[in-house]
């Protein structure tokens, strides 16, 4: 790597671990970039080390990767990625990856989940995909694989299967949590509806009209992208696949992916390209937040507000069209930079649109906030308490609505975010209202960022070429998507393909705490709470309601529930 040892950050983290657990705890320390440190520990020390970094040094779990490294070192490997934040000097923030090797003949490791609940989905996933057993995990159900997937077939093991293999399907069964108690009703929401864009199955346990608990099953449309990328695509092509992780915030994924490959191979991206990436990321935030604010208006029954938010959002879509040639900010990235420059005429058009948008947003927010129904429906609803948030590492406006000013753009500045002035927006209400206000605030920040970037963008090249990929190097890349941080991790291979690519979308970190946000709320608010997460929406088109008192189960269509949310009349449970 081309950086000097003075640039390396965060000596204090390994030092603190050595103080606490003895110097032998860390088997190896390697830096991927000055702010990315990987420490290798024995698997038996894994829970201790992760817990200490998480709770003892203000770490947050940002990703966890399983990897089949048997062809490299004869073992499986796990990488727990912690974002170390909250330092007085933001320059001291960094990424610490805790790595551990798991021998092939004994594929198990002590689960971190009992001590750091945020790890639960990651460990369930690694169990599904690699057959690595987290010993002592409280929730040992399948997460990613369908229930009818053959046992002992672990898709991401290198020798498991061809990426095109599709096993025969059989009837599914999944053990949803059972909530016993007087008067509790179970409401299933999902899983599949042909007209909906994303399937998910929600099971709400209600007592009368109030939600006691919730359980959900997702991943009905797991697309096996990681396996496809490893098998079929070259480094540049994966950019275009990464964009398709999400239909709304796709560009952030391709930036995160490129950044990971660039960090792993020491590729320096030209400054102008960094500015262009920043501008496009913010354009994406604009249309995403406008969409979510519109949806919030829609779900509280304020449909004319919804229409106006969408009318104004169109200007953000126009920006994307001017800058990228498509209504979505797709197809702009390659490893090493961007593919299309911003010309003067385009710049002037964008600046004009920003001025118009700012004025329109002022007016719309004024109307929205002064709609009594909106405040009434969103204040105190869907609370994400601070201690739950601490345990589950949620991200994005979801987190910033609960008083944590966590924002990747500030904590680990990437692209050009440390070159233009802007502020992290956070609110303390922990409720739907706070999350929507955070989004509104971020729209104004995005206007400023785009303007400043367009004005201050330096001239120069936008793409570097002619670098070479070093085999078996790894690093992570992170961006702050409209929904929260996206963290990608890559390991290069020796055949111009990725050895391993792990894409973690923001909503992945937000789902596990949703259960707690539902509790105590009226069932009519469920769609609103889900929408306030902004989970690449619509993962909720049908609901199962379980009445614990009457012991009956009822399936309600999402339309019915949504209508109930908007009208608050004609409860589908009573029909």
């Amino acid at each position, binding site marked *: 790597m081309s950086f000097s040892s003075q640039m390396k950050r965060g000596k204090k983290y390994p030092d603190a671990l050595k103080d606490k657990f003895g110097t032998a705890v860390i088997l190896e320390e390697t830096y991927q970039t000055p702010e990315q440190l990987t420490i290798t520990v024995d698997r038996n020390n894994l829970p201790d080390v992760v817990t200490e970094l998480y709770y003892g040094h203000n770490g947050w779990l940002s990703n966890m990767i399983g990897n089949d490294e048997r062809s490299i070192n004869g073992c499986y490997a796990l990488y727990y990625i912690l974002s170390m934040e909250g330092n007085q000097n933001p320059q001291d923030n960094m990424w610490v990856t805790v790595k551990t090797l798991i021998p092939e003949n004994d594929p198990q490791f002590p689960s971190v989940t009992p001590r750091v609940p945020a790890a639960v989905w990651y460990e369930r996933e690694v169990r599904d995909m690699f057959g690595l057993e987290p010993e002592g995990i409280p929730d040992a159900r399948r997460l990613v694989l369908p229930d009818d997937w053959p046992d002992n077939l672990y898709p991401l093991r290198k020798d498991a299967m061809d990426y095109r293999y599709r096993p025969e399907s059989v009837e599914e069964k999944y053990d949803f949590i059972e909530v016993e108690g007087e008067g509790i009703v179970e409401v299933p929401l999902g899983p599949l509806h042909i007209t909906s864009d994303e399937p998910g199955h929600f099971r709400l346990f209600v007592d009368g009209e109030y939600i006691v608990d919730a359980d959900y099953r997702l991943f009905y449309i797991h697309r096996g992208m990681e396996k496809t990328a490893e098998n079929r695509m070259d480094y*540049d092509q994966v950019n275009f696949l990464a964009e398709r992780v999400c239909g709304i915030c796709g560009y952030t994924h391709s930036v995160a992916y490129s950044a990971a490959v660039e960090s792993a191979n020491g590729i320096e991206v030209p400054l102008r390209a960094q500015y262009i990436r920043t501008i496009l990321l913010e354009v994406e935030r604009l249309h995403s937040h406008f969409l979510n604010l519109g949806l919030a208006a829609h779900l509280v029954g304020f449909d*004319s507000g919804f229409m106006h938010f969408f009318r104004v959002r169109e200007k953000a879509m*126009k920006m994307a069209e*001017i800058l990228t040639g498509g209504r979505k900010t797709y197809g702009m990235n390659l490893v090493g930079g961007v593919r299309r420059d911003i010309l003067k005429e385009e710049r002037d058009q964008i600046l004009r649109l920003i001025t118009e948008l700012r004025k329109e947003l002022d007016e719309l927010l004024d109307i929205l906030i002064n709609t009594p129904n909106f405040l009434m429906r969103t204040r105190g609803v869907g609370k994400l308490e601070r201690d739950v948030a601490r345990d589950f590492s949620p991200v994005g406006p979801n987190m910033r609505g609960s008083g944590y000013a966590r924002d990747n753009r500030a904590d680990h500045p990437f692209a050009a975010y440390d070159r233009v002035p802007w502020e992290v927006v956070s609110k303390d209400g922990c409720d739907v209202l706070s999350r929507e206000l955070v989004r509104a605030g971020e729209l104004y920040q995005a206007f400023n960022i785009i303007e400043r970037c367009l004005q201050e963008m330096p001239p120069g090249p936008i793409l570097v070429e002619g670098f070479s990929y070093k085999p078996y190097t790894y690093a992570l890349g992170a961006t702050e998507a409209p929904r929260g941080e996206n963290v990608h991790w890559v390991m290069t291979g020796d055949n111009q393909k990725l050895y391993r690519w792990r894409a973690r979308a923001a909503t992945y970190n937000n789902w596990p705490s949703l259960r707690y946000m539902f509790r105590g709320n009226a069932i009519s608010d469920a769609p609103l709470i889900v929408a306030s997460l902004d989970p690449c929406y619509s993962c909720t088109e049908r609901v199962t309601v379980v009445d614990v008192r009457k012991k009956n189960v009822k399936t309600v269509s999402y339309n019915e529930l949504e209508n109930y949310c908007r009208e608050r009349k004609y409860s589908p449970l009573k029909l």
Partner: protein
Amino acid sequence: MFKLLKKALQVGEATVEYPFKPLEVAPGFRGKPIYNFQQCIACGACAIACPANAITMDYNLEKGIKSWKVFYGRCIFCGRCEEVCPTGAITLSPDFELAATAKEDLYCKADFRLTRCHLCGEYFVPAKELEYILAALEQAGQPGSASHITRQVMEVCPQCKRRQGIKTAVKSLPRAVGQQQGRG
């Protein structure tokens, strides 16, 4: 409520009358890739770059044909094909109205004649690609006298080259060619 009403009246109609009126797109819009058969040399760069596998190349070695094919149903309009094409045979147009009633209408195909290997007689390279490379070499300053030698060398398929080694390949060429090659 009054504010909203005022706003609505002030904005008026927000929608356009598409499809009854044409929809303007920004310059540089990435729409349907337009293919120019005359320019294409069937090198396959676009098929290799295409992330979505919308562009494919298939060999038919019996008939001596290499077929290029794009399926617009898979196209993601990224424009990588345009970027990598050495001859400018494929460019993205502003046309976004691709809906078709039959799947067949979403394909665009072209067949190219292959040249036989000088030694084994198997088909292996598109004739147009070979001509293009020879022309490019000439452009780059290769003397005209050498071009027919280059042609003979290039008309040997990779398998034969591998099987015999480049030296034997050269030796097996007509005598005059071998000598000239040796001198060069």
